[in-house]
């Protein structure tokens, strides 16, 4: 494990280029990559076993490889409905978190106390899942909100809001607010300026924020399991099956679905953010 101290001199790139020790520099560079790749390998290792287990079936290590675990998913109605629930909830959470995230980002830009607003919006990121799930479950019971679809959407949106707000805020920080002033001078009202001037320039941020909410919703388990009632998402189904009967091939298949879905969505987010970057590089801002 390389500690930051041993990672070399804290000089700038420019200063480093002036050095005349190509072998040492090359070794240091190799060390940098070795460290980063080492950590990344440990982080990515756990993504492999569920996929292998799902393809090997329940016959142990020497069983034939097959897709049967995946076809079982389609055959069981509980699983099919959990897929449908997951998609519906994720879509609602993505929509709600995007709208609230946009409003929060605008509030941070326009209110007099941006730090306080940011602090409040980022708070859910720091509250552990069980604490939040338990508290929300009790609170909903106390004020008479039944365990339901709406309750799950609310709980997951709280969790997704910091992420969507941060993404939208990042993209909005590259937007020049004088363009809005120009729109107002030309007679546009607030909605019109937002719709015709700002949104066309920041939509990839909204798209990215929404996708992050979608990803978080699909993966969220502990907060959801407290308020879901009789509903089941794929993630909570995995968790409750583990707790009651343990894991099997079709559960591993479900995990693999979540892993593959999440990684492909993350790639989509990077594409959206790359579009923003390219726009920023172009003269029209």
């Amino acid at each position, binding site marked *: 494990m390389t500690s930051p101290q041993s990672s*070399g001199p804290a*000089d700038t790139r420019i*200063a480093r280029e002036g050095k005349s020790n190509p072998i040492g520099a090359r070794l240091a560079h190799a060390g940098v990559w070795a460290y980063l790749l080492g950590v990344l390998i440990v982080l990515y290792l756990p993504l492999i076993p*569920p996929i292998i287990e799902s393809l090997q079936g329940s016959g142990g290590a020497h069983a034939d490889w097959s897709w049967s675990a995946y076809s079982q998913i389609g055959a069981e109605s509980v699983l099919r409905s959990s897929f449908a629930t997951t998609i519906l909830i994720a879509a609602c959470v993505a929509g709600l978190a995007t709208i609230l995230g946009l409003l929060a980002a*605008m509030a941070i830009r326009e209110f007099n106390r941006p730090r306080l607003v940011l602090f409040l919006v980022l708070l859910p990121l720091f509250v*552990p899942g069980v604490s939040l799930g338990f508290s929300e479950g009790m609170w909903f019971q106390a004020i008479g909100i039944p365990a339901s679809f709406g309750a799950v959407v609310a709980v997951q949106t709280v969790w997704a809001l910091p992420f969507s707000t*941060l993404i939208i805020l990042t993209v909005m920080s590259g937007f020049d607010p004088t363009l809005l002033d120009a729109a107002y001078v030309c007679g546009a009202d607030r909605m019109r300026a937002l719709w015709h001037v700002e949104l066309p320039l920041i939509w990839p941020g909204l798209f990215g924020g929404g996708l992050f909410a979608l990803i978080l919703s699909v993966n969220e388990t502990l907060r959801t399991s407290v308020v879901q009632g009789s509903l089941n998402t794929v993630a909570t189904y*995995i968790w409750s099956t583990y707790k009651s009967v343990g894991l099997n091939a079709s559960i591993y298949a479900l995990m693999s679905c979540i892993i593959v879905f999440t990684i492909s969505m*993350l790639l989509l987010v990077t594409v959206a953010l790359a579009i923003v970057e390219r726009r920023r590089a172009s003269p029209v801002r």
Partner: protein
Amino acid sequence: MAIKRIAGKIGGRAALLAPLAFIVVFLIAPLAFAFVMSFWKRVGFQVRPGFSLKAYASFIHGPQHVILYHSLWMAAAATLVSLVIAYAAAYLAAFRLRRSATRVILFMFAAPFFINYIIRDFAWTDLLGRNGPVNEALQWVGLIHEPLSWLMYSDFSVMLGLVASYMPFMVFPIWLALVGIDQRLVEAATMLGARPWKAFVMVTLPLSMPGVFAAVIFGFVGSFGADAVATVMGGTGYQLAGNTISSAMNILNYPLAAAISSVVVLSLLVLMGVWYAVFDIRTFLGRLVR
């Protein structure tokens, strides 16, 4: 016309308050309610409003106090380990990589965080089990002769689970703080004769503290309240504060669950209060918040 504009302005202002109202109703109010509930009395399987410190007493002095201290210790240790790994990664990403490579590496660090950590914990039980690939590889290389039993269902595995869950995301605040440092300050220190190591300790490290502290809050509170990691990787009977909330909830001991949850949340609020008072959020979110 004027009336319409003023009405529009008030309406717009109200719309901007919506996310804050949402946070108050679905985050602040529930946490406050759980705090109040932690003082309620338990009569049989019922919970009655009242004022009792019984739940806190059992968590701080009583049967559950071992869990409290063990959780605090595990959370502190996991945070420290994560911090060293994350700081090194953030430092290298900020100063030792090309711009394009930095972006890829940061994305690679972010991605696993978004994949359900429960799924990753299940995978670790596979990898570290008695007949898992890690034990087999170690035996094949000849480092050990029989499977290591402490790899799984131990403090080690729980620690690994905690670090793997929260470390990746700790890279970001530190990286943000590091790239925000004016490099001329480091150059000035070097020109005035500071060795690179000293320039790091005297200039870079102190200036990165806002990010480090944010990372510490995230890692510590996350580990302190971790539920699934302790259940899946600690094995039967392994209790940290987080999964004790779940088990108290399962036996309908709501005041106890509320008390433990409130202790976790209060530790969060104290740390955040320190952060808010000591550091300016703008020093590392400067480009986002004007």
